[in-house]
């Protein structure tokens, strides 16, 4: 079958779910973070596919923005994780439960 928008979107949806799986299932903050990246990438894939099949380049512009935002988020996020690791010697969500109830 000739792959079309339909297929790209399904791949994108599955990729999104995989990212979500990482966020929910993993306890290492770095991996969780990577899961987030996967989710953003899934959106990128969907945008690019839409962009192509609807002949609307605006989607690609949006992808460009998303990549930038992701980079910024990664910068800040990693810095935060470093600071946290320095303070607590951990990058594990289980050790981050002093704020609760």
């Amino acid at each position, binding site marked *: 079958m000739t792959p079309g928008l339909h297929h790209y979107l399904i791949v994108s949806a599955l990729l999104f779910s995989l990212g979500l799986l990482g966020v929910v299932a993993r*306890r290492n903050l770095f991996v969780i973070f990577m899961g987030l990246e996967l989710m953003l990438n899934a959106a990128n894939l969907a945008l690019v596919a839409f962009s192509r099949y609807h002949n609307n380049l605006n989607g690609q512009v949006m992808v460009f923005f998303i990549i930038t935002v992701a980079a910024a988020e990664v910068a800040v996020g990693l810095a935060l994780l470093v600071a946290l690791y320095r303070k607590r010697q951990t990058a594990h969500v*289980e050790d981050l439960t002093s704020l*609760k109830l």
Partner: protein
Amino acid sequence: MEHAAVAQHAVESGSKIQDLAWAILVLPLVMAFGTAVLIPKNRTLSAVFNISGVVVAFLLSFTLFCLFGGQSADATPFHWLSVAGLDAQIGLHLDALSTLMLLVVTGVASLVMIYSTGYMHEDRSYTRFFSTLSLFVFSMLGIVLANNLLMLFVFWELVGVSSYLLIGFWYEKPSAGDASKKAFLTNRIGDFGFMLGILAIWSVAGTLDIAALKAQFIANPALLGPWAGLAGLLIFMGAMGKSAQFPLHVWLPDAMEGPTPVSALIHAATMVAAGVYMLCRLFFLYTATPGWPAALGFLDGLSAATIITCIGGFTALFAAVIAVQQDDIKRILAYSTLSQLGLMVMAVGLGAKTGDASASMYHLVTHAGFKAMLFLGAGSVIHACHHEQDIWKMGGLRTKMPKTFWTFALGTAALAGLPPFSGFYSKDEILAVALEANPIFFGVGVLVTVLTTFYMSRLVLVAFFGKPRGEGADHAHESPASMTVPLLVLAVPSAFIAWLPLGEFLSGHFKPGHAAHGGDILFGPFNHNPIAAFFGLGAALFGFSLAYSLYGKSPTQDPLSPKLGLLSQAMRNRFYIDEIYDGIVVPIHNLLSQVADAIDRWLIAGLAVRGLSGVVEIAGRALRLVQTGSIQTYAFLFTAGVLLIVLLALK
């Protein structure tokens, strides 16, 4: 604004001589208030003040009595409260009943107050006593003068509260406190019925004015229709309270905890007579066509008057029986009062058949005189014996206090119904009415007369004759003039008031134009109703001889008690009526209040409120367990939330 309206009204109609009644009414109030506010510390001045107030009231009453005699007149009223169909005035009505009653009240009150200057001399609350007494006089006069039902009720209540204050005058004595409470509450039960009666009458007749009501009743005796019987009985409940009719009689004996002058004025002469007075005033209710609502169909054939007669007769007999075995001088008098009130009430009920309650009213007047005198005499005795009230600890007082003795004996004779003293004539009227109406109640009357003479003779024989049996009696001596003078003054009317044509005067009120017996007053009874007169006299003599045979030899203990055995025990314990109240009525109310309190405490405040707040708090504590602090949990819940809203939105 209201005052302006009243003033304007007065200007329009011009001030009338009957407006003097206002002065009579207000004077004691002014005295009471003035004493309490202005001179609460000045003993002499307060006594002078209050006595003069009442005396002036008496003089004014006398003036009015002479001026208006048997006719009726109204003083300028003012609107107390007037909304839509409810028009309650404060207005004063003068007629034979009220003017006569004015005289009785102010007269006895004046004497009692004078007497009190001696009796209460050492009391530290001397001024309070006088002002409260004035307050009482004011309230009582209000009842006497009231021209409408609501005003009657108002003063009815005020009398109740003055009596409360006076019974509880020595509030430091626990028994006085309890007695005052009991008196007020028992009266309140009567008032409850009274109020409902007023409501029932008002809702049908649309007016509260007694004269207007009377006119309506005359025009249409079946005015109240099925409500007639109930309304009559409800109104009578008020009288039951004030006039201490069975089963609301329990407060009166206890009320003797008050100072003796109070007992004389309130619990012998005036307040307790208010019930009878009210029945006489609203007599038209009882002569109306009887009727009962469907729910009370079993009462068909009876009238309220019949029930009243029964209650009165029973009270008369019952109280007389109890009096026989009492040892406390004031309690004997109290039960005697009960018994006499019972007679009067019975007379009202019987009178309903003939449409004439004058016998009752007549007895009320005479009784007020001699019973007040008896109480004052008793007070004098108690005073002399250093507040000893047990007659078995007295004795031989005849010589030590002759003035007291003689007046007391005179009162006893009047009460026992010996001619030519007033009691004989008034009681004879009652017996005559009873004979005419219902022989059973005639029998009751005769029996009561026997018992009355018996216990009074017992009292006199034990307390005044023989030798002193107690310390108090040993050191007793005659009371000061302030006390004996009123006794002597009272002796005159109690002995001889019956020589005035009072009976005719009163019949004139009830049956205008009705021909009086006329003729010789002194021997009148023997002429127009010899059976009643002879039975009455015979009963009195029988009672006396019975008493003399038992107590003439000055025994140190009651010889009757062993003979009566258990009965005596029951009589001494007042047939356990108080115990029945204490054992049934009080616990029921306590139980109800306990249940209510439990509902409040556990069900509403506990289960509902605390429970609800607890549930909310637990819900909060449980719900926040969701906030585990773990990012993983949050991410999962977040995802679940996304799914949830997608489901909700897209179904």
